[in-house]
């Protein structure tokens, strides 16, 4: 083919341009540390890297969420542990008050201590987190959830429970509402309560009560009425369910329940067995305080006091069980957060590796390529220089 000087130069310039743009890209790669800086250099990888970056940022956000939930749950756990120790202290006081050797003024002093514990419990129930939110208020976290009332305390919150996203498709509650923790506490043994009739004149005191056969217990309300010499009749409405004879410390059993009594009920005394209802822990404390302050004036009022204190101890135990259960759930949530955090850390590492594989520069390879391009360019320049010297005119 016939080659002309003009064509030679045009083609040389084009190839130099191509080489220099390659070198320029190599330099960009080296200075950014990235294999590609625009999507056109590797469109699929650019889209994938974008997806991975989104996933990574999302995973980090889940980490932030988890930390936030962790903080709130720790605050709650702390509060609950203090609630438990207050309730334990209250239980000890109640047991102490149950001793027959105490005077009215002794009991009055214990009542004062119980009131203090009630105040502490109230303060704990109104615990606020670092953001000033009441942690036991449910969704209504900006209104004080508990205010003292004559019957204990009023709950102003709701039954809401806030969830926090700690992983794709996994949420964890970052608290519990006060209704669950302090309000909805079953009375008695958690299934039923046994209460003496206010007009009882004997010394019958309700002791341990249990459900011996859950299948046989129908949730009904029963009356246990005593006649002379310990004979008793259990009725449900007008129906007689069981009859029997009671001796001090004996157990009365019927329809799957067992009630242990102590002392001797008088003729005409009665006890009623009814399904448990929900009662706030503050009402239970208030009942205890009222009983302690009522004073003992007679044998029957002493029996009534013992029965009231026993009932209060039962309710305090239920409250303790409830706070333990809630604490166990909080612990479970904290565990799942920790598990999720380590899973997230692993997946973040994985994502970063994938991103780096796709986008990160293989420096050894990049340097080699750049070096090759440099060599080619200088060879091309040299070759051009050599051929430009070749002209017949030089020899004329």
């Amino acid at each position: 083919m016939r080659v002309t000087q003009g064509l030679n130069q045009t083609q040389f310039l084009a190839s130099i341009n191509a080489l220099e743009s390659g070198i320029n890209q190599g330099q960009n790669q080296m200075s950014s540390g990235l294999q590609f800086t625009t999507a056109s250099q590797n469109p699929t990888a650019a889209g994938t890297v974008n997806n991975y970056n989104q996933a990574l940022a999302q995973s980090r956000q889940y980490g932030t969420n988890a930390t936030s939930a962790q903080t709130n749950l720790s605050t709650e756990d702390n509060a609950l542990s203090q609630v438990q120790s207050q309730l334990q202290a209250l239980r000890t006081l109640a047991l102490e008050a149950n001793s027959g050797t105490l005077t009215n003024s002794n009991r009055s002093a214990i009542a004062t201590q119980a009131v203090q514990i009630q105040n502490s419990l109230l303060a704990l129930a109104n615990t606020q987190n670092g953001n000033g939110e009441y942690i036991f208020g449910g969704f209504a976290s900006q209104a004080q959830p508990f205010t003292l009332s004559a019957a204990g305390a009023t709950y102003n919150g709701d039954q809401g429970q806030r969830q926090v996203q700690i992983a794709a498709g996994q949420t964890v509650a970052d608290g519990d509402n006060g209704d669950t923790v302090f309000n909805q506490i079953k009375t008695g043994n958690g299934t039923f309560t046994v209460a003496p009739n206010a007009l009882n004149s004997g010394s019958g005191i309700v002791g341990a009560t249990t459900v011996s056969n859950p299948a046989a217990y129908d949730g009904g309300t029963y009356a246990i009425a005593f006649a002379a010499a310990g004979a008793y009749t259990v009725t449900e409405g007008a129906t007689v369910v069981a009859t029997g004879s009671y001796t001090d410390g004996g157990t009365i059993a019927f329809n799957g329940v067992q009630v242990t009594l102590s002392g001797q009920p008088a003729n005409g005394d009665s006890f009623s067995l009814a399904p448990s209802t929900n009662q706030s822990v503050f009402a239970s404390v208030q009942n205890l305080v009222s009983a302690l302050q009522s004073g003992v004036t007679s044998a029957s009022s002493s029996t009534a006091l013992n029965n009231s204190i026993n009932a209060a101890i039962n309710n305090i135990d239920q409250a303790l069980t409830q706070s333990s259960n809630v604490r166990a759930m909080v612990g479970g949530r904290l565990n799942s957060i920790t598990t999720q955090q380590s899973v997230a850390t692993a997946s973040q590492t994985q994502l970063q590796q994938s991103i780096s594989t796709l986008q990160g520069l293989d420096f050894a390879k990049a340097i080699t390529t750049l070096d090759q391009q440099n060599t080619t360019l200088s060879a091309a320049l040299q070759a051009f220089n050599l051929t430009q010297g070749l002209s017949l005119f030089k020899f004329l």
Partner: protein
Amino acid sequence: MSDVFGISVSALQAFQNAINVTSNNVANASTPGYDRETVNLTEAVPQSNGAATIGAGVVVSGINRAFSQAAANQLNTSQSSLGQLNALQNYSNQIDNLFGTTLGGLSTALQSFYSAFSDVANNPTSTASRQALIGQAQSVASSFQNASGELNSLNTDVNSRITADVTQINSIAKAISALNGQIVTGTAQDGGQPPNELLDQRDQLVSNLSQLVGISTTTDPNGALNVFVGNGQPLVLQGQTTALTTVANQFNATQLEISNTASSAVISNNITSGDLGGLLAARAQVINPALNQLGQVATALSRTVNSQQAQGLDLSGNLGANIFAVTAPLATGSSRNTDAVTASVSVSPTGLGALTANDYVLSFVGGTPKLTNTSDGTSVTPAGAGTVSSPYTAAGIAIVLSGTPANGDQFLVQPTASAAAGLKVVLSNPSQIAAAGAIKTAAAGTNTGAAGISAGTVLDSTNSNLLTPVTITFANPPSSFSVNGGPAVAFASGGNINVNGWQVQINGAPAAGDTFTVSGNAGGTGDNRNALAAANQQNVGVLQNGTTSITGGISGLITGLGSQAQQINTAQTAQSAVNAQALSSVQSTSGVNLDEEAASLLQWQQAYQAAARALVIGNSLFTTLISAVNQG
């Protein structure tokens, strides 16, 4: 005897001419469009002396131009393709560089926006996290605006380059037609010898023209060249030119189209190569689709965020107001419509999945509407009647006309073109972010059964009774319940209970007389259900029939724009090679090789010297003869 003088002189003249031609070649070695010339030597007609014929010397019968029309045509075609790809590449590379691998930070801004929603979910009562969310929303909006602003400025650039190209094409066309006249006259004057310099100039102009716009040419017998553009629209016919003009697009006055002064028809669709073709293609294939896709994502973002917002309550207990606003889809009547009927378009309430990034032309033939997708040409007959109560619906959009369109009316419907540019944050008060769920549920403390009620979800946030308190009371036996004391409804544990636009489930075994309440969540400022749902929306497929999430849409856009740029780069590289080949083929025929010219110079010099020597010998012969005569 006189022959030797005549012959020698003819040779001296011819070789001088040859040396001139060669010198001219050397002089024009670097002149663009110059075609190498060679001298055409012919024997002079001899005189017969009856016995033998002796030659009468040499004459220059013409100067030949080394020109191959085929090679030139090939180069022109290749230049047109390359010009088109160069223009396309210019714009696709600009977009590629501007948007990089994060679409100009849009992707990062979107992620931060959803993270900010998560932060609000963590701390729904915190004004700081709410304020941060609004800040992130603004950053998303300005990222969309910036991206579409960049694309729109590229469109402006396209317009100004179209105008410049058209001006240049017209001036080249004028020059070609002027040269046509000179060439026709010159050829006639020189007795059929073509004026090479003028031909060179004209071919060079044609070559320049081919870089601007794809052309085809024909040559008339008298030497005049006719040039056609596009689909055979004449640009130059002999000495006449038909100028191109720019006219506003019939739907969009901001976009220029190419027209031809002869027919005043828009011929943009026929111009597919050259720089001009590349500009039109860049607008139609690169810039506008990117704007539409960006707008599609912006529409989806605004729609999903606002509808989630509407399902929750803000700090004041009101249903959430919109966070984003986008420009409504555009429907523009053609400037050629014969009546004043206008169209308005909106994205159908459930149309997000069907919404495309395409533009459509709504046309009426015989009163029948037809919606044609401008990107693939497919058309459908939209459902509905085009009225407010029954709009035309198709492809996720609803179109309402202000009247009955005339036959032949056309409207350009652009569902997403302006959405990204118009995306803005319309919520400024951080307390108006609806982080809380709209309703709350509660089980009464006196309940003795073992049933719980779910937190509830909002099905229809527009229900006017949504926030009205409702009590669900279980009958005796608890196999049915009543709502607000209404008729008994059979109870199934976990079954959906739908009232007033909300839905709850009651699980477990309720006891007779148990009550549950559902009420508005005013005061539930610590609730984060709605913020949680909003934060999770980034992973929810909403586009392309629910298969693509908002962030997925951005990734798709990055990959799409990137592969388009890559494809154009590849095509441009390939076409450059083709062009280099065509150029070398032309150069091989018409280019000046200086070594060759040096050799020619030597050749002619030697021939000239020999002819001069022949003259000297003739002279000495003559002198010999004269002196012999004198001596005799």
